[in-house]
């Protein structure tokens, strides 16, 4: 206890120096708390917005379909498998899909597009597209003879709601697939790839046109919370037929690029964070060191009075620790305050909004407010400063009482 009191009092022998050092630590700690919270919030936003539009949280596919999405690599009895997953797991939403390539033609234009067969009643649970139908309506029944098309595609084809669309493609068995369907709705997701290259029709209609029987290609499963995906994945895998024909892939394996993009960003950010922490450590190391050097005489006296070097070292270490903790506490309070503010207000800046507006997204980051975001940065700072404070503390062991008392 006396050690603690000594350390605390020593700290305030140089008020200005202590405050300057505390400010340095607080500044970096607040900055890291804020940056890490924003960074993780941005990742969440990227994941959420990318998955919500179409891919979903996890997908059941035939093994190998992910790398080579071919029509023949299909899931038999796809609706039944989807139903089994729907009742057998805690999934928030399950929807079956089938994919094919088709040449779609209007009166005077034709384009190659991705044709998707969906379950109209289930699709809204796993994708935002049903909710983004600006003109007309989304697909009605599971076997309705109708399509919805992306807005850019509709514009390029010069068609509107009520017009007929000719679809040409090849079926699963290699036969010619051809049909004429009325357009009942036009959707705008903001993602040019989807708006330009996708048409959706009811699953049964798709299976009929593309000679799929009861097959499909993908079952999209959404968890209630993205954090609960691990458990859901295990549940889904347990329900899949044995033999390994069907696999369940979490979003990381469906959108491999997204995960890697975030990892690369993480590496780069930590390079920045760590260089900042090292710089500030050197910047405050002088305070620790001076606190020892200027008290050489005092330590000499203490040693002569019988204090063990270890004990003095403990006092010095404790001083550094208190100093750091004080700085970190202020830093966490300030950084956390800013994070809480943006947690409710949303963080954005104009250029970012412009970029995201092109994808029809709000471009507002909600910083992640959690124990990790509040303490991870400060914890690393603490580790570095403790390491730094070892050096001055260890110097005390080399002091000889008589020489030290004579020192100026």
């Amino acid at each position, binding site marked *: 206890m006396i050690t603690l009191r000594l350390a605390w009092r020593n700290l305030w022998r140089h008020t200005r120096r202590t405050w300057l050092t505390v400010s340095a630590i607080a500044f970096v700690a607040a900055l890291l708390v804020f940056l890490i919270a924003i960074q993780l919030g941005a990742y969440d936003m990227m994941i959420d917005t990318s998955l919500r539009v179409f891919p979903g949280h996890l997908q059941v596919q035939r093994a190998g379909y992910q790398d080579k999405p071919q029509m023949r690599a299909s899931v038999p009895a796809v609706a039944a498998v989807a139903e089994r997953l729907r009742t057998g797991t805690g999934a928030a939403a399950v929807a079956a899909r089938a994919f094919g390539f088709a040449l779609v033609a209007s009166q005077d234009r034709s384009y190659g597009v991705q044709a998707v067969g969906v379950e109209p009643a289930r699709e809204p649970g796993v994708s935002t597209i049903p909710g983004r139908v600006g003109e007309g309506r989304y697909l009605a029944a599971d076997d309705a003879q109708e399509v919805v098309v992306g807005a850019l595609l509709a514009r390029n084809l010069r068609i509107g709601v009520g017009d007929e669309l000719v679809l040409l493609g090849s079926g699963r068995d290699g036969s010619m697939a051809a049909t004429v369907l009325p357009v009942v709705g036009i959707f705008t997701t903001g993602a040019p790839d989807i708006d330009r290259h996708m048409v959706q029709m009811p699953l049964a209609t798709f299976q009929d046109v593309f000679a799929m029987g009861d097959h499909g290609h993908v079952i999209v499963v959404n968890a209630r919370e993205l954090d609960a995906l691990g458990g859901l994945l295990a549940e889904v895998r347990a329900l899949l037929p044995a033999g390994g024909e069907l696999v369940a892939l979490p979003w990381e394996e469906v959108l491999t690029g997204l995960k890697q993009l975030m990892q690369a960003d993480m590496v780069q950010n930590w390079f920045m964070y760590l*260089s900042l922490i090292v710089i500030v450590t050197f910047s405050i190391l002088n305070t620790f060191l001076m606190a020892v050097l200027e008290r050489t005489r005092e330590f000499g006296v203490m040693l002569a009075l019988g204090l063990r070097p270890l004990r003095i070292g403990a006092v010095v270490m404790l001083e550094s620790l208190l100093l750091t903790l004080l700085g970190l506490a202020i830093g966490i309070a300030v950084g956390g305050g800013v994070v809480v503010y943006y947690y409710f207000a949303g963080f954005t800046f104009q250029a970012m909004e412009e970029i995201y507006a092109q994808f029809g997204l709000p471009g507002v980051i909600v910083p992640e407010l959690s124990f990790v975001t509040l303490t991870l940065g400060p914890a690393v700072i603490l580790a570095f400063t403790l390491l730094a404070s070892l050096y001055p503390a260890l110097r005390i062991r080399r002091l000889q009482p008589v020489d030290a008392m004579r020192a100026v």
Partner: protein
Amino acid sequence: MRATLLLTLAWRNLWRHTRRTVLIVIAVALGVWSMVILAALARGSMEQQIRNEILNLTGHVQIHAPGYRDDPVIDHRMVPPSPALRAALDDPAVTAWATRVRVPAVVASERESAGVALVGIDPEGERGLSFIPGAVVEGRYLAPDDGAGLLIGRKLAERLETGLGRRVVIMSQDVDNAIADRGFRVVGVFDTDAPGAETAFVFVTRAAAQAMLKLGEQVSELAVMTTDRRRLDALTARLKAAAPGLDVASWAEAQPLLVVTASITEVVLYIWFAIVFLAMSFGLVNTLLMAVFERTREIGLIQALGMQPRQVLVQVLLESLLLLAVGLAIGNALAWGHLAWIRDGIDLSAFAEGMEMVGVSAVLIPQVEARDVLGANLLVLVLGSIASLYPAWRAARYVPVEALTRV
């Protein structure tokens, strides 16, 4: 008192506490090192994104029929370059230019089909203009008289289960809005860093595309490569004058997102410079304050002996400047050495797919820009001196008698 004397005093004062000075010099050096390295990496990554996008059929300047950029179909076609446009393109700044046919199409193998852009190119004209002449990894590049030859991306070839020597059918809309189809033979497979290019394009000769789509001599676009992508204003103005009625756009107009990304990168970089400097400045000010306080008596004495407060101030400032200069010299040397070491690039292949999403190659080549290095050094020097004003002013304010009698 002469300036050299003040300088000598400052320099000697600096080394009265070697350890303390060394510590703060290290902090300054590390700060500058991290600024320079980070700037080089950020610039390198940005440069790569822009260069990849330009090579990805964008070019420095592109000319289209009005409406093509919004809706790239055969309806928005244009006549081959007029003599006036050809004359304008015969410019010392232009290193390469070529016309292309580029329309949406369907490519079908025996098993699968996919939507792509059919690109009809002038095989020789593309050299120095786009990625394709250097990207063929299997088979060969197109020859000018390759009527039935086609280049396909590796990923697309895998998806279509086709390959070298096999036939694929291309379907697209011709000028009469009828579906034109034609068989081509895969003569080459290409592999590229450019985002999505491997599945987005198939290449044939321009003549073959024109014949298939009944285009005659008409084309979809004209792409131009120049000596410097930053100085395009004069050239685009000349091209606009030479090609009235056509849409002449620089890469920056064609890819506005890239320009926004570049400016965000720059702003983030400068904010980071400021943050690193702040982290350093706490230590700098603290060290100088300590140096001044422990010399209270001494400063009082020399003031009593006739040194002006102004000279005390200059002396402390000089001390700080010298310290910063030493730190900067070491930091720049460190950064220079580090950059020489990573000159050939940092291997990012662990994140290859993610990097491809943003158009960065698997190897990141740092790019040093003089203004970043200069900016970092000036920032530290100028702001550092300003931060040192406080301790210097404290020192100059001592009243000699009080200072002398203080313990």
